[in-house]
């Protein structure tokens, strides 16, 4: 192939305005990471050694144990349940196969909040056990304390296993049939079919689900703090909030990033292998009928995660809220926090959908024009990296650039005699920015996947029929993409509403969302009105779970790979 010299005009004939805007957006997404590295490097020798000696080793160790434990728990529960509901028929199977997704609606800090109270030495469970055993004081008998690393692993596992369950079930449902039937016909028994065929087949799906669950674990701040586990995330928060040591917090955040990168690499690698596997023809697996005791055992086993991960905390929160409402009505503070949460989530959703559309559409436009596609694809991928950044890491990385921005605005405003104060930080603009960066992958990925189902030839047809790109967006893309847009918007709305770590760090003074209000309540050790906030969060969180169960696709998040 000959290489021609290009005129400048030919070089820059890209769909410039939109693509530049998208590239700018992608740059903003990686800005926190760059700033973080710079801030960490600035930390003086003394600070680094303090963090290095006193905080990092213990926090890293705790975090690694937590990741390992949660990984095992979600892997076992998620894969086991997915296998049982896919391969066997037993009472309640259909119903349970979607009920297993319900714990997705319970954020980690809510499950910890609920169980702390449920399992309190004076709480309902321990009292019941003592009554049954004939003891009458917590001093004579108490269960092992939930406030331990093991307790934390168990609780996180109970609400995070659906990530594994959903991806693995989708895999079994679409492509396991012919392989498993061949294995059976070659004389493999049920155990051998599972260990020798199903498990290796599901390994990429397990890894994808597990890496998503572990990213959530890394992101968690509420549960580990309530349960007294000093993880890296908790250390970032306390180093900044209580010690006001930004460089130290950045150093810890940077070490978290190493773990994030490992998890993302694992996820991407497994997704590639998964895609390879999914080229096989798909047919659902016909489940084998279980009888008698075995059938009921399966029902019991599969019900357990649903009961512990969703029903128990949900019932507890509902009961507590009901009691509280009967006694005092809905407190003004809860109403206030609800309104705040709703407003900020609506704004963040709007911005995130618009930003996602910009990223996905500029790629589409490049494909339409037949130029700049590679650049646009990289832009989309970089712009979607934020989903992997834990909220605390993102917030710490954003603090400095936002302070610069506010200072800059203040200087300009001062020059014309106005007092702007801290525009971004005080207005909630910082929060909206953080939510957008963190959840951009959901909308950008969803819209991009939506575009994937509309061949580019359709755009070309519309263009040849006299339509400008804008008109194509309006008359062809919009009607075809509405479901993808709505799905993405719902997910972002709910995720924003549940978000805790970044919200804690970036919210304006005295601005409480349901999540921060619950956090403050639990941090004070007061479990009064928090139940209502928790219940509201779980109820709204149910919406995407229902959507997910209905679409039956099983993809938790569509991340552009």
């Amino acid at each position, binding site marked *: *192939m000959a290489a021609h010299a290009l005129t400048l005009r030919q070089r820059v*004939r890209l769909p410039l305005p939109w693509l530049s805007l998208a590239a700018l957006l992608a740059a903003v997404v990686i800005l926190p990471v760059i700033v973080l590295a710079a801030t960490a490097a600035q930390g003086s020798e003394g600070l680094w050694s303090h963090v290095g000696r006193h905080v990092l080793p213990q926090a890293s160790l705790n975090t690694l144990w937590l990741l390992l434990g949660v990984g095992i728990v979600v892997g076992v529960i998620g894969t086991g349940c997915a296998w049982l509901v896919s391969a066997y028929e037993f009472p309640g199977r259909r119903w349970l196969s979607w009920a297993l997704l319900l714990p997705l609606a319970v954020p980690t800090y809510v499950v910890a909040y609920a169980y702390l109270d449920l399992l309190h030495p004076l709480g309902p469970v321990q009292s019941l056990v003592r009554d049954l055993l004939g003891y009458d004081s917590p001093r004579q008998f108490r269960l092992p304390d939930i406030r331990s690393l093991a307790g934390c692993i168990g609780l996180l596992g109970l609400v995070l296993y659906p990530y594994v369950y959903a991806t693995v079930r989708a895999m079994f449902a679409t492509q396991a049939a012919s392989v498993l039937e061949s294995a059976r016909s070659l004389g493999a028994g049920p155990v051998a079919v599972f260990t020798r065929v199903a498990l290796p087949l599901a390994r990429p799906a397990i890894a994808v689900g597990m890496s998503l669950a572990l990213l959530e674990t890394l992101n968690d701040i509420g549960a580990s703090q309530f349960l007294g586990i000093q993880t890296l995330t908790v250390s970032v928060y306390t180093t900044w909030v209580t010690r006001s040591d930004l460089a130290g917090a950045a150093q810890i955040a940077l070490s978290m990033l190493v773990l994030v990168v490992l998890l993302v690499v694992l996820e991407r690698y497994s997704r590639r292998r998964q895609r390879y596997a999914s080229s096989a023809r798909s047919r659902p697996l016909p489940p084998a009928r279980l009888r008698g005791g075995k059938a009921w055992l399966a029902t019991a086993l599969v019900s357990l995660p649903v009961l512990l991960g969703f029903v128990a905390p949900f019932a507890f929160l509902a009961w507590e809220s009901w009691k509280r409402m009967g006694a005092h009505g809905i407190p003004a503070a809860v109403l206030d926090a609800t309104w705040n949460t709703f407003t900020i989530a609506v704004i963040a959703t709007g911005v995130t959908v618009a930003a996602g559309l910009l990223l996905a559409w500029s790629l589409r436009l490049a494909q339409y*024009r037949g*130029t700049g596609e590679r650049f646009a694809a990289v832009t989309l991928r970089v712009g979607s990296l934020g989903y992997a950044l834990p909220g605390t890491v993102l917030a710490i990385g954003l603090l400095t650039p936002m302070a610069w921005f506010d200072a800059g605005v203040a200087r300009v405003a001062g020059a014309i005699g106005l007092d702007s104060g801290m525009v971004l930080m005080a207005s909630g603009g910082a929060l909206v920015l953080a939510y957008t960066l963190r959840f951009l992958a959901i909308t950008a990925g969803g819209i991009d996947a939506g575009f994937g189902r509309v*061949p580019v030839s*359709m755009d070309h047809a519309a263009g040849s*029929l*006299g339509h*400008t790109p804008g008109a194509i967006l309006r008359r062809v893309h919009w*009607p075809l993409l509405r479901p993808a847009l709505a799905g993405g918007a719902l997910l972002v709305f709910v995720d924003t509403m549940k978000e805790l770590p970044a919200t804690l760090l970036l919210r304006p003074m005295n601005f409480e969302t349901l999540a921060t209000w619950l956090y403050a309540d639990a941090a004070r050790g007061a479990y009064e009105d928090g139940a209502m906030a928790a219940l509201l969060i779980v109820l709204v969180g149910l919406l995407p779970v229902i959507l997910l169960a209905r679409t039956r696709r099983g993809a938790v998040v569509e991340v552009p790979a």
Partner: protein
Amino acid sequence: MSTPALELTALHLGYVVRGELRTVVRDLSLALAPGEIGCLLGASGCGKSTVLRAVAGFEPVRGGTIRVQGECLVSPGKSIPPERRRIGLMFQDYALFPHLDVSANVAFGLRDLAKEQRRQRVARMLELVGLPTSGSAYPHELSGGQQQRIALARALAPSPRLLLLDEPFSNLDAGTREHLAGEVRALLRETGTTALMVTHDQGEAFAMADSVGVMVDGRIRQWDRAEVLYRRPADRAVAAFVGRGSVLPAAALKLDGDGFVLLRPEQVVVDPSGPIPATVVMSRFVGPGHVCRLRLDGGELVDADLPAGPVPGPDARIAFRLADAGPVRLP
């Protein structure tokens, strides 16, 4: 000569990798007279679809000009956007809008017409493609052949100055394909539409086009009527791509001179007193006759179509002569 409906001059197309241009199509020129149907024929990856996209405006042009009815669409430093070119497009996958019914699909490019005129135009187009009652159906309710016709109606509705067809029949089964190719050709004739189509299927090209260009590696090797391409291919690449045949040294067929000749299978006539002896390698019955492969004594393999009748089995020795219209000498 009147102004050509389409004129490509020294067209260069390619994509940029790290600031360097990888040429896909080089120095390509062609002209279509008004009402003429042209076709670019070539293997996948030869650049033919790239040419089509460039004419439609979906591919950056690195050099050369594109003119339609004398109007310059693309020249150095200038490119009219696709939506203002008034060029119709028909795709392999039809690209019908799934959220619109057939009428709305056909009316999609008629936004400038008044409502009543638009309705009449849609009705007229549906009648033209033989589906007058399908207006309220949705694309997924139609068969492949019907979708194809609707796509044609949609592309022709705004009276484009030129119609481009990208492998238009490749998604249809063989029977429908032949039938529809004839119909589409008649329709384009009737409406006087100039068209350029690309395909890798020689049958499709011969059934539709007045003139065919064989493309190899981004260049047109020969631009001619179908018959000429078959009878007198310009070089070995064209000979290999159009029709079946064997390229042999002239000496192998006991012909005078050096160089190579193209021997078509139907030019082999079995004749015990023929000058060329050969061994049968295999033979297969295909209905009207037999398809055979012969080995000449020099080791060259030759394909031959023999009429029905007794055919010698493998390893049999035979002799043949050449049909009257002898083999073509290749440069």
